[in-house]
């Protein structure tokens, strides 16, 4: 054997050479205006704020702070488009617009993936393989409902609601825009979309795509800004329906705000998902599923499997394998194709994660953090597992929204169900077992809107997604996802 080749084997130490995607694919402009009435406004006409690349902390571009006046103009534009154009557009024609949008997303997939990774901090592998393809798929799926609403199970000829105000979070910026716009437009509504403050860019590229698709002016309006902009939209009397995805705290405020109005409301809020592992789980796939459940998208996932409930008889073995697997996670430059875990989206979010993790240690849980070297610039947190967590610990009850897993144990299926349900949330759970009857038994008792069996974090436009209790109400995806946007 040629010894020197083996000694030089870079593969031997998990050191794949850097394989970076190119940031220039993104074609970012230095500053952006708002998208109202089918046109971009002049950036200079607005106060601007910077959107940062969380992997470096540096500015990517500046975007407009939408004022109360801007929101008013956007709503008026959506109303005008609804009254004069969109409500007179047949389902078949609406379908074709949505198919066009889906197609263009596919065509510009690479550009969108890079923009998303730059603005959000998530690994390019995830934006490329999951966010962007799913965004296109949601448009394709709902395009196909637009011309067949008669058959959606809501009675003959169901009608849209009118103007929808939609506020989306920073964790899946383009995908959340797709989840909101596609069903709303398919059902015949017009929209005003408010992207998250820290991730406005992919929505602005989407606006260009809407122009390319020749969507009639005003059918979709995009107003960037912070919480003030969002509040203006929620309170605007010209909006018929509000859809919000974000934290439970803000969701409460919104629900309170619209309580006295006729506005329809759907909310998709936080969660503290229980990933339940029985002793007969398929062991290697289960470890991957736990990892996927909490470290996918840096744990910035409302439905994250952030509580691991392991049957006590296999807890030690699961922890051993889990810790070993966590060490293998590649944390670093989100633009590198080999990166598994990217940056935390903002300094604010990083502070929250650090605070709760420190509390976890003080509460007495045992902390295992990856020994990965974190970059010095930007916002980073090492993937972490807490073992010996008690049901009453803060880290077992509060949503951390980061790459932090809390591990608890149980003895019987009843106990697993009781512990899983012992939360004010009710968004998602996972169940790992090779025994189908038990999986189904547990599933019917879990108070969660989404239950994954022997998998986790799987999304599909045909599959309804949403929570119970304080994780919100309403469903996105599937036939059920149309209900929020129909006057039924």
């Amino acid at each position: 054997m040629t010894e020197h080749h083996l000694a030089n084997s870079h593969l031997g130490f998990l050191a794949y050479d850097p394989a970076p995607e190119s940031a220039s694919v993104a074609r970012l402009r230095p500053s952006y205006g708002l998208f109202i009435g089918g046109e971009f406004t002049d950036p200079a006409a607005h106060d601007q704020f910077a959107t940062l690349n969380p992997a470096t902390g540096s500015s990517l571009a500046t975007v407009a702070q939408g004022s109360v006046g801007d929101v008013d103009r956007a709503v008026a534009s959506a109303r005008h488009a609804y009254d004069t154009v969109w409500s007179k557009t047949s389902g078949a024609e609406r379908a074709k617009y949505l198919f066009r949008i889906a197609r263009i997303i596919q065509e510009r997939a690479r550009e969108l993936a890079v923009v998303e990774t730059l603005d959000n901090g998530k690994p390019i592998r995830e934006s490329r393989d999951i966010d962007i393809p799913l965004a296109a798929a949601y448009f394709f799926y709902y395009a196909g409902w637009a011309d067949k609403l008669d058959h959606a199970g809501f009675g003959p000829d169901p009608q849209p609601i009118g103007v929808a105000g939609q506020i989306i979070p920073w964790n899946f910026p383009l995908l959340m825009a797709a989840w909101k716009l596609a069903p709303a437009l398919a059902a015949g509504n017009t929209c005003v979309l408010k992207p998250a403050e820290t991730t406005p860019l992919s929505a602005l590229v989407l606006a260009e795509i809407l122009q390319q698709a020749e969507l009639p002016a005003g059918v979709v309006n995009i107003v960037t800004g912070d919480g003030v902009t969002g509040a203006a939209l929620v309170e605007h009397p010209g909006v018929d329906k509000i859809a919000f995805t974000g934290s439970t705290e803000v969701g409460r405020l919104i629900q309170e705000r619209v309580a006295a109005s006729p506005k329809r409301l759907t909310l998709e809020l936080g969660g503290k998902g229980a990933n339940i592992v029985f002793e007969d789980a398929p062991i290697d796939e289960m470890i991957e599923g736990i990892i996927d459940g909490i470290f996918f998208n840096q744990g910035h996932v409302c439905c994250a499997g952030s509580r691991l409930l392991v049957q006590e008889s296999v807890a030690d073995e699961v922890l051993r394998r889990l810790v070993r697997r966590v060490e293998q996670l590649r944390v670093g430059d989100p633009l590198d194709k080999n990166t598994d875990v990217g940056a935390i989206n903002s300094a604010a979010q990083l502070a929250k994660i650090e605070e709760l993790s420190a509390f976890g240690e003080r509460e007495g849980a045992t902390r295992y953090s990856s020994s990965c070297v974190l970059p010095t610039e930007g916002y980073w947190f090492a993937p972490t597992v807490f073992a010996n967590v008690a049901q009453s610990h803060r880290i077992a009850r509060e949503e951390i929204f980061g790459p932090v897993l809390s591990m608890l144990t149980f003895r019987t299926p009843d106990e697993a169900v009781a512990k899983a349900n012992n939360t004010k949330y009710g968004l998602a759970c996972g169940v790992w077992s090779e025994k189908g009857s038990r999986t189904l038994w547990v599933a019917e008792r879990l108070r969660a809107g989404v239950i994954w069996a022997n998998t986790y974090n799987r999304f599909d436009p045909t599959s309804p997604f949403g929570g119970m209790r304080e994780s919100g109400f309403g469903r996105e995806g599937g036939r059920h996802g149309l209900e929020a946007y129909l006057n039924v």
Partner: protein
Amino acid sequence: MRIPAGATVPTIESEMQLRTMLASLSGVDAVGVEGRAAKLATRSVKKASKMAAIDLAISMVDLTTLEGADTPGRVSSLCVKAMRPDPTDANVPATAAVCVYPDLVAHARSALAGSSVAVAAVATAFPSGRASLRVKLLDVEEAVAAGADEIDMVIDRGAFLSGRIGQVFDEIVAVKQACADAHLKVILETGELVTYDNMRRASWIAMLAGADFIKTSTGKVPVAATPPTALVMLEAVRDFAETTGHLVGVKVAGGIRTTKDAIRYLVIVNETVGSRWLTPELFRFGASSLLNDLLMQRLKQQRGAYIRADEFSGD
């Protein structure tokens, strides 16, 4: 991975004991394992890492010819290529071994004299394994007597699929004995075992019975090595090492034609059992046309242009 000190391979004294042991193994979720293999396929191995991977892969090839039409001439040609894959570049490593039918072992032995390339022989009524134990053992003995360094045997899939796992186990033990100093690779023929659960169980049977290597396929049935199959086998090898302290190698064979395929497998090895297995001592590719693609990619990395196939000898 932590290999425990003083751990040993348990002695299996009855089929019942073997059955109990296998029943304690976890099942494999097909969707999950295929998903994991697909995710590992997204690893991008470029530049210096790619060059190192190519050289590593070349050094792991068991250059194979297993045709009814094989002749001494064909085998000689193959041996020359195995020793010096690229006649114009002495830096290209030799392959790990040459793999032939038993009646050509002596010829391969003399053609490879003085080189580092081992002679591997398929035996035990390869590829079907459908013959008496007596005949299969004689097949092995003759190959060993002719100078084979390595024996690639096939398990009795009929026995496995009809539940006679004790017989499968006993045959491997008997073949291992007949191998004497030759190292033993046990071919599971995963394409015929079909389910990942079967592959996991067969892997453990082979390892408990004394296999030095477990191998995916004969290359003679439609379904051969696949990334999820390799993943399942490598997981079994990892778990076996952690339980018994014994390191078993893995050979993937059949249908591996491109450098891209080969690197996919090296990534799976790297991220399942770790770098300890990234050596011809513990990982092999059973292939024929793969070598030329590795050489072409190696040259492309150096020259920066796509290469034509005729740059390298056909055999």
